[in-house]
């Protein structure tokens, strides 16, 4: 045996390290059903069968066309024939990772591939700067021709100046923004720190709290003259003992639907409590406390007599708005990042336990749920961080990756694929947008780190 025929030394540390690396990767690879690859192989073969004669025909046609051009040019007339390019070969499918949670298997596409392969879209974006609050998805609302946001009027040290008037003793303000011009057309200062808002039943609804003051206050505001129509202190237990800074702001929500308002607050023990109120009288219709083992509230949406609540343990709750009682619950993923309701569907973004931060597979997925039952109608595989929709089913979302930065994407709600993508004004994971809302063909993005509100409109 010559030296060239020798097999590798199996005790060589370099060889051992390489084999360990290959084995480690192999262990974590999910095997997708082979039927997809067989279908793809068969499709490629059919394409080849069509393409080879098509190329030959194209070549013959090109020769004939060239000859024709020469003849016509020499004879002094005619025009250049137009050449239709062959369709480019379709791109290979996106690499994906499978994760199973609670008996359901989710697909999550390679984030970098989704971003680099998505078509870019032409948008017009405008940004205004002030200390806008964006604790969660419910930090923006639309109604009465305006966009509604909250701002902090306490000194933040940031560069942006608040719009909320001279009374700096108040904790925050509700701000009315003209949806067309983005100009602030009104503010209402609020003593209890406003943390969540919604628009429904012709009014703006603001949920607020104050450290050291028991209970939460739900305030109903007239959108035309910015005055308080009604308010009620709702349960949640005494928050007086809450340490400074630990407000649980990101876990507070309000949503409205038909004749009810749903507020999510925290009990004294720190559990999420869902309180359903009659919109006219502000009396409590029903109240449920989410078991702490099922996590804290991280998202809320309401439509069609149902309030949908997501938690940081991946649970999705269906709450009957007429009774305020739990109508169903199931685990979808490891964390619910956002919930948004259109007339046709509930859009939900989740985190999966297999995800690794700052990687091609951050473990994010976007689901389209049945608006009545909550069943997963489509697992899009899109690794969106946040998704938002409006009653017309216009769906937008945010992709965030340390390598590529932040992107705003418009989702084709028919094909559940990315219709267009544009880079967000904010770069870097530290500046990932906090809130996205959709209204009348525009996406609105709140970035609390940048103290900015951005409106993105598709240029058609």
């Amino acid at each position, binding site marked *: 045996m*010559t*030296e*060239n*025929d*020798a*097999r*590798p030394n199996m005790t*060589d*540390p*370099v*060889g051992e*390290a*390489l*084999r360990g*690396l*290959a*084995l*480690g*990767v*192999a*262990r*974590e*690879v999910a*095997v*997708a059903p*082979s*039927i997809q*690859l*067989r279908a*793809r*192989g*068969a499709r*490629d*073969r059919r394409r080849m069968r069509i393409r080879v004669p098509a190329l030959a025909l194209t070549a013959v046609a090109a020769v004939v066309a060239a000859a024709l051009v020469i003849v016509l040019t020499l004879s002094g007339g005619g025009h250049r024939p137009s050449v239709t390019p062959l369709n480019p070969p379709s791109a*290979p*499918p996106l*690499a*994906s990772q499978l994760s199973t949670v609670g008996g359901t298997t989710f697909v999550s596409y*390679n984030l*970098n*591939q989704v971003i*680099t*392969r998505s078509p870019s879209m032409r948008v017009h974006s405008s940004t205004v700067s002030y200390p806008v609050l964006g604790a969660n998805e419910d930090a923006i609302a639309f109604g009465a021709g305006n966009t509604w946001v909250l701002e902090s009027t306490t000194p933040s040290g940031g560069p942006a100046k608040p719009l909320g008037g001279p009374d700096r003793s108040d904790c925050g303000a509700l701000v009315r923004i003209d949806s067309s011009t983005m100009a602030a057309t009104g503010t209402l200062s609020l003593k209890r720190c406003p943390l969540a808002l919604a628009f429904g039943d012709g009014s703006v609804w603001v949920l607020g709290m104050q450290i050291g003051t028991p209970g939460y206050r739900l305030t109903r505001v007239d959108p035309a003259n910015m005055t308080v129509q009604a308010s009620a202190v709702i349960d949640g237990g005494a928050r007086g003992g809450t340490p400074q800074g630990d407000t649980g702001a990101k876990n507070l929500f309000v949503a409205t639907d038909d004749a009810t308002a749903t507020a999510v607050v925290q009990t004294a023990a720190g559990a999420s409590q869902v309180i359903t109120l009659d919109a006219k009288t502000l009396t409590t219709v029903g109240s449920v406390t989410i078991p702490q083992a099922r996590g804290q509230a991280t998202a809320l949406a309401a439509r069609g007599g149902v309030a949908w609540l997501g938690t940081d343990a991946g649970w999705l709750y269906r709450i009957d708005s007429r009774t305020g009682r739990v109508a169903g619950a199931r685990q979808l993923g490891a964390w619910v990042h956002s919930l948004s309701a259109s007339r046709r569907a509930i859009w939900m973004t989740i985190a999966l336990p297999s995800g*690794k931060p*700052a*990687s*091609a*597979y951050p473990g994010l997925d976007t689901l389209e749920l049945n608006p009545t039952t909550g069943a997963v109608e489509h697992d899009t595989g899109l690794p969106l961080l946040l998704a938002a929709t409006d009653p017309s089913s216009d769906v937008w979302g945010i992709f965030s*990756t*340390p*390598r*590529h930065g932040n992107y705003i994407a418009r989702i084709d709600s028919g094909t559940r694929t990315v219709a267009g993508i544009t880079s967000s004004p904010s770069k870097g994971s530290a500046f990932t947008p906090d809130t996205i809302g959709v209204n009348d063909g525009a996406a609105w993005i709140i970035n609390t780190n940048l103290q900015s509100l951005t409106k993105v409109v598709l240029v058609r």
Partner: protein
Amino acid sequence: MGDAEAYSDFYERSYSAIVGQVFVVTTDRGEAEEAVQEAFARLWSRWSRVSRYENPEAWVRRVALNVAMKRWRRARRGDQLVQDAHADTGLVSEAATTGDRLDLIAALRRLPASHRQALLLHYVVGLSVQEVAHEMSTRLAPVRPGTVKSWLHRGRAELGNALSSQEIEDD
């Protein structure tokens, strides 16, 4: 066993292992998975022939490596996707998150693709130098055993340095 069943059985048995092997060359799991999926898709239309080969897995690996190399060359001509993927340690697989693995991958990335491929075929797949040369040769560019030995020597030295520096740090 029908063709579809035999194909599925082979796919399920070998897919993960081949992805792991191709990863040694791409150093990116997404790229490795794409290349191997493409190879398996091509395999289906040739299954009746390739399934009779002594080692169909070698055929899939070779096609996957060709696909990966083609994509890598395209990337060098300006396709941002793969360039970004290679530059981004975030794309390193879960198996590569420990310090020594990251060092190993960083060292692999410093090597030319041909060196990585030779290291894979010799140390992971277990081919002899002669077989590696045969496997990597094309009609237009034959590879001699002496060249493979040189690639293995340089590759081994680079990876050896990365591993030994890790041992020193660990101490």
